[in-house]
Every structure is written in C-alpha cells, then in structure tokens.
C-alpha cells in the first residue's frame, strides 16, 4: 500500500481491453475466431509512433507490469523495478505496452472465459497455445493499436522466449529484442519440473478433468503445490539460505508436521496467495507453452539458422545463480547469434538471487539495462 506514489512510478494505471475479431490459427491446428486481450500502457506514444516497446510476461505474470491499480494495492506491477520514469524502460521516452497472453487468467480470453456458443466456460476445452501463437496474437494486437513496428520487444524468462520468437517470426516488426534470464528451449530437467507441477494439479480430486468451475471448486491443493515447487526453482540455494537459513518460525522444534522452518512458512504463503489469483487450467497451459517452445525445431535444430531471419539487434542477460535458466542457456542464444552474425550485447550478471533476479533491483543489471535502453532510445527518429 503506497502512502504516496513514488516519483519513479508510472502511478495509478487502468487496464484496457481490445477485441480481436480476425481469426487466429493456432499451431495445434485449432482456431480462435475472436478473442479479447487485456493490456496496460505506460508513457505516451509519439507522433511518429516509433517509441513503442512491448513487454512480454512470464509464467505467472500478467498485463499489470508497473504502477498501481489503486492506493490500496500492497505491491506495484510485477516489473516495477525496471519500468517507470528514469528506470531502464523509461516511460518518459518509451510508450510501454504489456498484454496478458492468450490462455491467461488476467482478463484475456482463456480457460476462465465463456466459450462461444455454449453457456459454460472454456475450462479444459481452451486450446493449448504456444509461444509462437502468443507472438502471432500480439502481432494482431499491435496492428489494432496502430503500431507498425516495435522499437523493442522485451521479456524475462518465458517473456524472453517471446522476444526471441518475435525476432524470428516478424523480423520487420521490431528493432530490438531483449531476452533476459531465458533459454532457447527447455531442458529435460525443466520439463520434468513442469510435469511434477502439472501432476500436482491433475491429480487433485477437485480438478474434475479441468471442469472444476462447474463443480464450484478449484484444485487448490494441486495449484498450491505447483506454485511451491515453482518457487523453489526461482530461488537459488544461496538466496534461500540468506533469506531463511534454518530459522524456526516459533523459535523451537515442535516435532510435528506443522510449519516449523521459515522456508516452509514462505512456501505455504506463496502457494496460498497464488490460488486466489491464478487459474489451474491456465497454469497447465502456460507450462505446456514452455515445454513446446523450440524455435530451432523448424530449422533442423539449428538456432543460428532460425536467427538468420532476424533483422533486429539483441540484448541478452543472464544471472550467475539462475539454475532454472542458467547462464549457459543464454549463452546458447548468444552463440547462435554470433554464428548468424547478428548484433548482440550479452551481460552475465553476478547475482545470488537465482532466476528471480531479473525482477530485482540489482545495480549492475539495472546499469547495463539502462545503457542498452539508451541505445534503443537512440533509434527513435
């Protein structure tokens, strides 16, 4: 709850919606005839319409990337550390757009939306979408917003994958792709973690084959476990040690299965607060989008061949203690870019915070991000 909105905040913001009526053919073979997208914007679009940047969100993110919805909000948008006046994604210079992805649960059409022609919600009948589908839908939204070319497409983690896909699928429609704490495809270990998260949800008796809305319930146990598992992969061992160590909640061991260690309390809290704001079908769908992502797949496994299509400049960032998408994964992207002779700046940030570091105010990361975004601003006519 901000008593006063900080000077470097975009302030109070209101989400907007847009209706896309042009059909979208999905990779799965299915089609969406029309859909709604919820999004937020910060800053002003200039007269030449060439200062627009697109922010792509990650697994549990949404369109609310910065600022506050009301003075009662406990926290600002998920990337408030990087978006705002004077911040790397400077709203004095850029017109910032962040959309909630298709299949999401923040207001864009997804499993929790009414299914056309029925009186029920989509639920498990919402088609599985891929990163490529998201990018295609974002391109449809761009046209409707009158943005011919993005000055930059920016994202962390799963968001970075969308930026990479943009560069390959719509080379003429962006000048810069910014890929932070991301990977060119998931490893077997990444997929394994996703599968455990999915099984937690799928095996919850309240899941009802995804039709839990009709049973007036939610698979809260499964969703809670999925989130707890996710949180372990977002933090590094060192970050957990620094944050919690072996600290006890009540000061002494109770020899029971109650919460004893602070880290247990933290995970339970994260799981608990997630079930109130996130939909289980969306979670399943998002993890599948992650698993399917493989831009090199269409090019015989050669990422450099995929990236030869790109016309934009790239900025890639990794964090030393990120074991979900380790620096080596970012370096795969960098090496493919070097092989494809595409412009790239790569910053390897030494940070103990793990995967979550991309959301945090880490001095060197922010300075380097600033330096690159100044270069991006230089491309405004």
């Amino acid at each position, binding site marked *: 709850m901000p008593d006063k909105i900080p000077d470097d905040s975009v302030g109070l913001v209101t989400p907007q919606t847009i209706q896309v009526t042009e059909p979208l053919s999905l990779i799965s073979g299915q089609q969406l005839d029309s859909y709604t997208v919820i999004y937020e914007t910060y800053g002003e679009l200039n007269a030449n319409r060439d200062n627009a940047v697109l922010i792509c969100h990650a697994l549990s993110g949404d369109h609310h990337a910065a600022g506050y919805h009301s003075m009662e909000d406990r926290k600002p948008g998920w990337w408030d550390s990087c978006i705002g006046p004077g911040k790397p994604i400077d709203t004095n210079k850029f017109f910032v757009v962040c959309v909630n992805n298709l299949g999401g649960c923040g207001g864009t059409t997804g499993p929790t939306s009414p299914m056309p022609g029925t009186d029920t919600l989509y639920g498990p009948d919402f088609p599985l979408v891929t990163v490529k589908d998201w990018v295609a839908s974002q391109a449809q939204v761009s046209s409707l917003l009158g943005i011919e070319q993005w000055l930059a497409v920016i994202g962390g983690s799963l968001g970075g994958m969308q930026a990479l896909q943009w560069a390959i699928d719509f080379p003429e429609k962006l000048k810069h792709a910014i890929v932070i704490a991301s990977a060119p495809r998931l490893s077997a270990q990444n997929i394994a973690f996703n599968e455990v998260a999915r099984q937690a949800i799928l095996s919850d008796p309240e899941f009802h084959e995804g039709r839990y809305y009709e049973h007036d319930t939610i698979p809260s146990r499964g969703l809670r476990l999925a989130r707890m598992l996710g949180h372990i992969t977002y933090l590094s061992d060192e970050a957990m040690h620094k944050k919690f160590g072996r600290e006890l909640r009540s000061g002494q061991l109770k020899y029971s299965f109650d919460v004893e260690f602070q880290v247990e309390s933290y995970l339970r809290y994260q799981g608990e607060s997630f079930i109130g704001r996130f939909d289980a079908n969306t979670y399943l769908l998002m993890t599948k989008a992650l698993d399917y992502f493989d831009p090199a797949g269409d090019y015989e496994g050669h990422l450099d061949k995929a990236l030869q299509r790109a016309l934009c400049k790239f900025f890639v960032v990794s964090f030393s203690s990120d074991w979900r998408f380790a620096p080596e994964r970012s370096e795969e992207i960098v*090496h493919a870019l*070097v*092989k494809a002779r595409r412009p*790239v700046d790569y910053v390897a940030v030494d940070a103990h915070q793990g995967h979550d570091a991309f959301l945090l105010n880490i001095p060197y990361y922010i300075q*380097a991000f600033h*330096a690159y975004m*100044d*270069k991006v601003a230089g491309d405004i006519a």
Partner: protein
Amino acid sequence: MRVDLQVVREWIPENSHVLDLGCGDGTLLASLQESRSVTGYGLELSNDNIIQAIRRGVNVIQRDLNDGLSSFSEDGFDFILMTHALQVLKNPVAVIREMLTIGERAILTFPNFGHWRNRAYLGLKGKMPMSETLPHQWHNTPNIHMCTVKDFELLCKENGFKIEKKMIVDRNQREGIGLNILPNLLGEIAIYQITRR
C-alpha cells in the same frame, strides 16, 4: 587512441569479420566499425567496460577468456585480436592456439617487459617494475604473465606460430631508429600478426 590500437586498425582490411578478446570499453571495435566497415564482437569480463562498450554501440559479450574459445570455432572470423590482454591470461599459449583455430589470423599487442625502463627499475631499485603502462604493485597486478619481445618470438618458434608482421613502438611514437635496432630494449609495446604455419 593508444598507438598499438592505431596500428592494429591499419593492419585490418576493410569489411573484415573480427573477434576482439578483452575488448575493454570497445574503443578499437567502435573505431574499426566506423572507419573500416569491420563487423564483429568483443569479449570482455569487467562490468564497467561492458557498460561503456554497450554505450559505444559495439557488440560486446561478457565472458572470461580463461574459459576457452572453442564455442566460436565455426563463426568464420578473419582476425582474432587481443590487445594488452595476453599478460592477464592463466594459460596464454593455449589461448593463442585457440585464436589460430577459430580465426585465420591473430593480432596481438602486449607491453614489452624487456623495455629498458623496466630493466633499469629492477636493476637499480631492486624492486618489481612499475610504470605508466604497468601501474600495479607485484601483489595486486592482474598481469601475471609478462613477457619480452624476445620471449614472445621464442614462443612463436617453439609452437609453430608464423609471424607475418610485427611492429615495436613506444607509447608516444611508432617510428624511431632505436626501435628498429634494439626493439626489445627500446620498445614499450609489441604488435604481432601471426598465423598457423
């Protein structure tokens, strides 16, 4: 721009594709891009240099040269450059070998430890030489593998690196009768272009 960088710039043909190892703040790459339409990338470790290089508009990749270069082996570089970085490497010979594997040619510059001022410093003061080029004390210097012009040429001979071009200069000028006659004594900075034999 430092004298050795000026020389390197002249040695590189237009439109070459280069990899600059230890590219610092990107001065050389920026100048090559601008004046000779050279393309390429710089590898650098220091955070401060990375930020400056980004601001200069060059392609800079944060990486420790000691971690090896084999991942750049199929990238078709014409020249691998390394200016004033040889002396900080853990295993300089291994890196030079890799340079000649991933690129056609390598250009290296390094401070000549055989310069008379270093010899005099050690000889007269009996202490490890310090100067404008070598400002560190023995215990905090990043320069762990200093060599002389003679040492470097011997290394090339022993390892089968073919010297195609060389120039020994001092900090302020590149020509001088002394530099030609007694390069290892009078030259402060050595510049070599080498290739596989």
